[in-house]
């Protein structure tokens, strides 16, 4: 069952919380730093304003995420109050030093890029961002040089580009070929597989880490899949939910570094993180997952 997919999945010991299992991790190609294959997105789910109850729930989600071995948390200045909520949660749960902070620059003016990144960093309350990406390629011509300069200055560790839902793949491909980026963020799941043709192979060829957003199509894919009972082979993968099957499908692709499902519920983050353990589907099983998604 593990097959070729499992062979390239590097294992590393669990984090400080003693885990009986080992979490699946992938190296970031440009440095070799290991990254657990399931991260945490914050689009919509962490945009809760100053609601103290919802903020506490988000802090619990982050606490559970890190306890389960997760590292990458991804956000953007476009996500409303999400950055503030992350900062609040990191401080409440004392997690600042244990996460991999991934944010974005999202502003039309290239001249204001640094200022926005610094403002975002203040909201996260981290010493420096690990990764900053140009959100949806907005004015990448000015922002990418800024990110590369920040990286050279040691103010961020990695630079990248992001897009979603299949937009601007031509531009992404061109930039992956021409720019010294560490990360690219794209949409990939059993129904949205356009990136398999060119972008994912190119990422492997060029040594670029891949973050996968919208793994569940903002929940729509899981709602559709929920109409089908879990297939018998789910148990072979150690999956107890469609969410875990979909995540395992995504991270089984050898080019994928980390998938970032978003949730505001502790039960869901635990369920998602369970997908970062155990076996990954081989090529035949991945085809069956695609077939199930297309039937849904």
């Amino acid at each position, binding site marked *: 069952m593990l097959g070729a997919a499992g062979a390239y999945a590097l294992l590393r010991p669990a984090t400080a919380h003693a885990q009986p299992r080992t979490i699946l991790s992938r190296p970031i190609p440009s440095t070799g730093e290991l990254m657990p294959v399931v991260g945490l997105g914050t689009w919509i789910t962490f*945009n809760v*304003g100053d*609601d103290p109850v919802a903020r506490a729930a988000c802090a619990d989600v982050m606490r559970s995420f890190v306890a389960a071995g997760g590292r990458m948390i991804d956000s953007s200045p476009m996500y409303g*109050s999400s950055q503030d909520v992350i900062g609040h949660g990191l401080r409440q749960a004392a997690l600042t030093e244990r996460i991999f902070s991934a944010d974005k620059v999202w502003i039309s003016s290239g001249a204001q890029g640094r200022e926005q990144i610094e403002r975002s960093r203040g909201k996260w309350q981290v010493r420096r961002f690990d990764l900053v990406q140009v959100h949806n390629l907005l004015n990448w011509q000015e922002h990418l040089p800024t990110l590369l300069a920040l990286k050279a200055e040691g103010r961020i560790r990695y630079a990248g580009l992001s897009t979603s839902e299949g937009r601007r793949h031509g531009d992404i491909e061109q930039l992956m070929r021409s720019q010294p980026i560490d990360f690219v963020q794209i949409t990939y799941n059993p129904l949205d597989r356009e990136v398999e043709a060119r972008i994912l192979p190119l990422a492997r060829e060029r040594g670029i880490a891949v973050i996968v957003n919208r793994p569940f199509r903002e929940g729509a894919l899981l709602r559709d899949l929920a109409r089908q009972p879990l297939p018998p082979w789910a148990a072979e993968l150690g999956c107890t939910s469609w969410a875990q099957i979909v995540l395992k499908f995504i991270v089984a692709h050898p080019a994928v570094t980390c998938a970032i499902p978003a949730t505001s519920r502790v039960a869901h983050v635990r369920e998602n993180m369970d997908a970062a353990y155990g076996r990954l589907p081989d090529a035949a099983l991945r085809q069956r997952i695609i077939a199930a998604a297309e039937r849904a």
Partner: protein
Amino acid sequence: MSEWWTYTLADFLMFSPRTYWRLFELYNVAIWPAQLVGVAFGLALVALIHGNRAHRDRIIAGLIAACWLWIAWAFHTQRYAQINWAATWFAAAFALQAALLVTLGVLAGRIVLETVNVRARRIASLVIILAVLGYPLLAPLAGRPWSTAEVFGVAPDPTAIATVAVMALVRGRLRWLLLAVPLSWCAIAAATLWVMDAPQAMVVAAATLLALWPAARGGRGGTPAAPR
């Protein structure tokens, strides 16, 4: 925005329905008992529309302007902007509507309401009563707690609906200038609720169309009367 045709309404919804309704819950707690003032203002509008007191139209414009200015500041700027960066623009639009009502209505007296067409006034009154007394009921009807109720005068949707009803009575072409922001907001509100799968979207759309009916029927002529 590149490849704009690939975006859907849902792509612009950046918060969950749960967060949206919690926003109203926290807002209602924070501003209590301002809701009572809003309801009083709404009922006063109905009485004024059917009355004939001096400076009636200036008072109506002033009452509605106060509501729009309050919502611009207390709701959009202080609350909604936390979860929707577009709320800053919404606040500006609401403040603009308040400014129009004050300058054209309260100060210049150029906002003159229909007095002859009884049916038009009755429709306006019906819509205002629905917005003031009926709209808050949508919260429990949808299975949400009362604390999430949207109240005329302090919440944007019922205020915009009632404002459309009143502005539809304004004589002359000025009505369309005064309807621009309220109608735009009703469209935004209905779209937001629609994307959140809230049946309330249909209520907003239907109430707005009903409120607009007098303007559509009588919007082809008429000149403003002398200032009252």
